[in-house]
């Protein structure tokens, strides 16, 4: 639980303990002083008073003796009165001493003094009565010397013993008082030393505990300040990097803004061009429709040409068939002419003239055959040309068909292109609008980026301030650590 105490509580507790020790020390000192004072008072009030009263008693006795002597010498009543008052003073002192003495020996010695005084008083009264009865002073003096001196000496001896005893008691009381004072001083010194030791221990413990805790806290503060310094460093570096990035971003955003405006302008132009393209596509579609119609007409003409050429081919084929027949007839005529020649040759001279005719017939047949070959070649050429023309025309017809189909496809594509161009126009307009909105948004972003850049610069400044504060805190923590552990902190 003590670990959770605050420094104030610990210091207050230490002070409380120190104060308590001081109070105990003071109480002990007061008690000891009171004891010493009481003992001194008792010594002064009892032993010293007894001794004083004893001395006064001795004086009263001396006064009584001197009064007695005077009375004996003069017989004057003044002396008698002096003796009487001295006797009364002595008795009062004895009574006071009797009421004050404490020891048995003092009472016994005091009773001996009282007995000696009574004996002395008896002698005094008898001598004085004798002096009052007689006028002889010499005799009285002699009697005084003879009778009073022994009792006086006895009484002085008893009083001396009492005084000695009282003096001894006084010395004992003073010594006892001195011993009590010494004991009190020693006790006070011991208590003071114990309190001092306890205070030192407590101070050591508190200092050590506080030093440890404060040192740990200071170490933590130092570490935290170092970390805070590093974090502030990083934050400052990050803020600077962020500021730099923000500057670059602002530049990029500005370029983006310019680009967005260019894109918006381009989109506007694209939309305009797309509109013109849409018109051109519509015109192209119309032209393609006309071209397709022309292609259909061409195809019809080509089909008609193909039909005529096929008819020409069939006619040529018929001519060829007739020509085959003519060729066959020419061949047969040739064969007949040959046979006629053979027959003429077999007839000898009689057939010579017939042979001539047969030869003419054969030559004619040859010419017919040759002419037929020529005609056949021509017919074949015509048929080949017709076939080639038919093939080419059919190819043209197919090409016309393909062209018509392709024109149809092209027309469809033009329709599609026109639709797409329309869609493109709409898209371009939407792009233009979106780009304008984007440019506006980019402007807003640019403003926001500028604000962020300003905030970043402020953050950088704040980070720098934080860094300075962290550095100061680190210095303070080092100073505090040095104050706590001067040998540890360099």
């Amino acid at each position, binding site marked *: 639980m003590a670990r959770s105490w605050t420094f104030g509580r610990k210091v207050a507790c230490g002070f409380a303990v120190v104060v308590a020790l001081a109070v105990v020390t003071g109480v002990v000192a007061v008690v000891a002083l009171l004891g010493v004072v009481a003992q001194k008072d008792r010594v002064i009030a009892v032993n010293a008073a007894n001794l004083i009263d004893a001395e006064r008693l001795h004086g009263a006795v001396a006064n009584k003796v001197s009064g007695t002597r005077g009375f004996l010498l003069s017989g004057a009543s003044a002396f008698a009165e002096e003796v009487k008052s001295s006797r009364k003073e002595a008795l009062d002192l004895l009574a006071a001493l009797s009421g004050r003495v404490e020891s048995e020996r003092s009472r016994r010695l005091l009773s001996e003094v009282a007995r000696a005084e009574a004996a002395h008083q008896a002698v005094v009264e008898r001598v004085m009565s004798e002096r009052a009865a007689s006028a002889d002073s010499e005799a009285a003096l002699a009697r005084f010397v003879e009778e009073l001196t022994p009792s006086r000496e006895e009484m002085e001896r008893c009083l001396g013993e009492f005084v000695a005893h009282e003096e001894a008691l006084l010395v004992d009381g003073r010594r006892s008082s001195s011993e009590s004072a010494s004991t009190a001083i020693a006790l006070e010194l011991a208590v003071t030393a114990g309190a001092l030791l306890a205070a030192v221990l407590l101070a050591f413990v508190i200092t050590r505990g506080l030093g440890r805790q404060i040192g740990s806290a200071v170490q933590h503060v130092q570490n935290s300040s170092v970390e805070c310094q590093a974090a502030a460093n990083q934050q400052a570096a990050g803020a600077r990097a962020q500021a730099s990035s923000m500057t670059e971003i602002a530049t990029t955003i500005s370029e983006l803004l310019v680009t967005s405006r260019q894109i918006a302008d381009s989109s506007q132009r694209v939309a305009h061009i797309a509109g013109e393209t849409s018109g051109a596509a519509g015109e192209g579609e119309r032209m393609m429709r006309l071209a397709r119609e022309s292609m259909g007409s061409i195809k019809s003409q080509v089909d008609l040409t193909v039909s005529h050429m096929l008819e020409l081919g069939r006619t040529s084929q018929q001519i060829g068939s007739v020509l085959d027949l003519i060729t066959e007839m020419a*061949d*047969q005529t*040739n*064969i007949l002419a*040959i*046979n006629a*020649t*053979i027959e003429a*040759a*077999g007839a000898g*001279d009689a057939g*010579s*003239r017939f*042979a*001539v005719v047969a*030869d*003419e017939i*054969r*030559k*004619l047949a*040859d*010419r017919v055959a040759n*002419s037929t070959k*020529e005609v056949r*070649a*021509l017919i*074949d*050429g*015509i048929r*080949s*040309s017709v076939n*080639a023309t038919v093939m080419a025309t059919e190819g043209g017809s197919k090409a016309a068909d393909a062209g018509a189909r392709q024109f149809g496809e092209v027309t469809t594509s033009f329709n599609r292109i026109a639709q797409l161009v329309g869609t493109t126009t709409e898209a371009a307009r939407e792009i233009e609008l979106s780009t304008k909105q984007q440019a506006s948004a980019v402007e807003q972003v640019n403003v926001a980026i500028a604000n962020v850049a300003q905030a970043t610069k402020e953050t950088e400044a704040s980070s720098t301030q934080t860094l300075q504060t962290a550095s100061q805190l680190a210095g303070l923590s080092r100073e505090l650590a040095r104050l706590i552990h001067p040998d540890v902190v360099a």
Partner: protein
Amino acid sequence: MRDAAAIDPDLPRALREAFDRSFAAPRAAPAARGVDFLAIRAGRSACAVRLKSLKSVVKGVAVSPLPTRREALLGVASVGGGVVPVYALAALLDGGPVAHPPSFALVTAGACPVALAFDSLDGIFSVAPRDIRPSAQKGRAPRYVLEVAETEVGARPVVDVARVEQELLLRRGPSGAERQE
């Protein structure tokens, strides 16, 4: 293919003139005529036969095939009211098989006429007797070729049709039945 555009436009007129000129030209005198030959082609061979050795020439003769192992014998045909055996002249000359049926046939003028089928008819030509010489490639030329007729376009072997007829007659016998060799 002959291009129609390449036809000579004067060709009809030229043909007409040639036709008219043939009738206007004088006829050759019979005495000036030499030996007449029929120029034919049989297989790979271009040859000639004397007209005097022939009875007739037919084209497109219908040959009825006969069951025989002789490759040269194509069958029999009706020519001039009689049935004659038809032989492939190319097979007789070269000894090889007949690739396709010949278009023409000549009928020999012997006692036992036979028809010798050939592929094409080139025409009739006449040469002087001095232009007829014996074949210089005896032993290498076919055995029926004994003479060569020199023409303006070159020499043409002359097939001795009478010898062919005679050997075919000897081969098939007087009864006309073909002997198996």
